[in-house]
């Protein structure tokens, strides 16, 4: 095992730090407030009734999913274009994409349930929904590319390129779907783009949800990128050990 990796693995004996503990505690406090306020303190909507409470999960998770994919793209760009190709950027990109896919799945599931209750259908070929579904599949593909055989540098380069291509792809998909849907009649019980008026507590709870989910996202990404570092170091250690064993065999012979 190389000296550098030995030092790094000693430094990263666990994935928690003072900062992540503070973020974790804050996330628990804010999310507890969102659950209490969202389920009991806020009133039901005049039109949508109790189903409006799905909004406190759906909107923040969609927000976090988009933020996660932006973080992935920015971190990938830093890895590819920076003079020193730091694998730290690649790990942040990968961790952010994993968390983003999870939040995007939550967005799609809660959106379908909400849609069933408000529009009468689980799914509509609305441009926003369709683009979100494409984004979800695209980042599942990104995660599959990260699991291809190869070194950590190959993984970083391949997945970095895919993340940047996704940035090119998403506007094209969104524009083509918007254009496509402009030729079709909408069939909604309730217009998904309708102007929703909210009272102060509902708006505050929604805002708290966004803050809470952002804290959860930060906590998850920080821990995940550190577990990725440990995983990379473990692979490196196995390779170093294999080389050392081979050298010892040669000396023994």
């Amino acid at each position, binding site marked *: 095992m190389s000296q550098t990796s030995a030092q790094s693995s000693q430094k990263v004996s666990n994935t928690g730090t003072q900062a992540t503990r503070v973020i974790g505690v804050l996330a628990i406090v804010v999310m507890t407030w969102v659950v209490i306020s969202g389920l009991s303190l806020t009133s039901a909507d005049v039109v949508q009734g109790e189903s409006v409470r799905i909004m406190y999960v759906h909107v923040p998770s969609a927000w976090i999913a988009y933020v996660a994919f932006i973080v992935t793209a920015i971190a990938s760009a830093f890895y590819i274009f920076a003079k020193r190709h730091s694998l730290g950027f690649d790990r942040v990109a990968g961790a952010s994409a994993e968390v983003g896919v999870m939040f995007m799945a939550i967005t799609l599931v809660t959106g379908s349930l909400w849609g069933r209750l408000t529009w009468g259908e689980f799914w509509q070929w609305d441009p926003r929904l369709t683009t979100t579904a494409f984004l979800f599949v695209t980042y599942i593909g990104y995660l599959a590319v990260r699991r291809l055989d190869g070194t950590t540098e190959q993984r970083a380069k391949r997945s970095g390129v895919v993340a940047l291509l996704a940035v090119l792809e998403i506007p094209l*998909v969104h524009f083509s779907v918007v254009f496509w849907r402009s030729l079709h009649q909408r069939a909604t019980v309730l217009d998904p783009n309708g102007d929703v008026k909210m009272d102060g507590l509902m708006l505050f709870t929604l805002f708290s949800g966004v803050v809470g989910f952002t804290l959860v996202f930060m906590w998850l990404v920080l821990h995940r990128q550190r577990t990725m570092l440990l995983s990379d170091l473990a692979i490196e250690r196995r390779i170093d050990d294999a080389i050392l064993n081979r050298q010892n065999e040669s000396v023994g012979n």
Partner: protein
Amino acid sequence: MKKTTSKSRVVSAVLIKDLRIEVRSRVVTNQVLPFAGLIMIMFAFALDNDDVLQRVAGGLIWLATIFSLFVIVQRSFAIDTADSALDSLRVAGIDLSAVFLGKAIALTFQLIALDVVLIASAFLLYQVQVSAIGLVLLVTCVTCATTGLGFVGTLYGGLTAGANGRETLLPLLLLPVVAPVLIAATRATEAAFGSGGAATSEGWAWVGLLTIFAAVFGIGGSLAFGPLIDE
């Protein structure tokens, strides 16, 4: 000036190499074209209605093209990786964006040949009709759409070349990316056929979208292909 000449030579050499392999092996002619024709026949079995088939003929042509794209791309890169031909090109010190362009143009030519057969089979099997101005739109649409598919197919083929499980990974990566081509090419083809009362003039905006797609992935692919296989 010398560099430009050298790049164009690499493009033409790779293009001729890929087309020569096809002429000698006849995989597209003997396997992919019958496969695409079978897809068109199977769609007819599944939909079982002449009016519906006429209405959706454009979409079926482009779905068959995209399914065939996976087969052609995997075949093209399987040949290159089997004997480490890509590694040889890489160590030869040539411009890898030229290799990308050469392979993309070769793939485009193969897709154009495929689409000619698919459109001909739509005329025969689905009884679609096209006017003179519709034919101009159709030819432009096929040119732009296959160019975009050629670029994006080569780029993602290079990405998954040599990887385990590339047969399943390639469709997973490519399908979301080619969705704009499927939508735009289908709408333009429907306008050319006049399906569902669509006017031919409606198709030109979709051809514009196909051109933007081809330009974006042509430039993006030229920049990204080198770093992707330079490992």
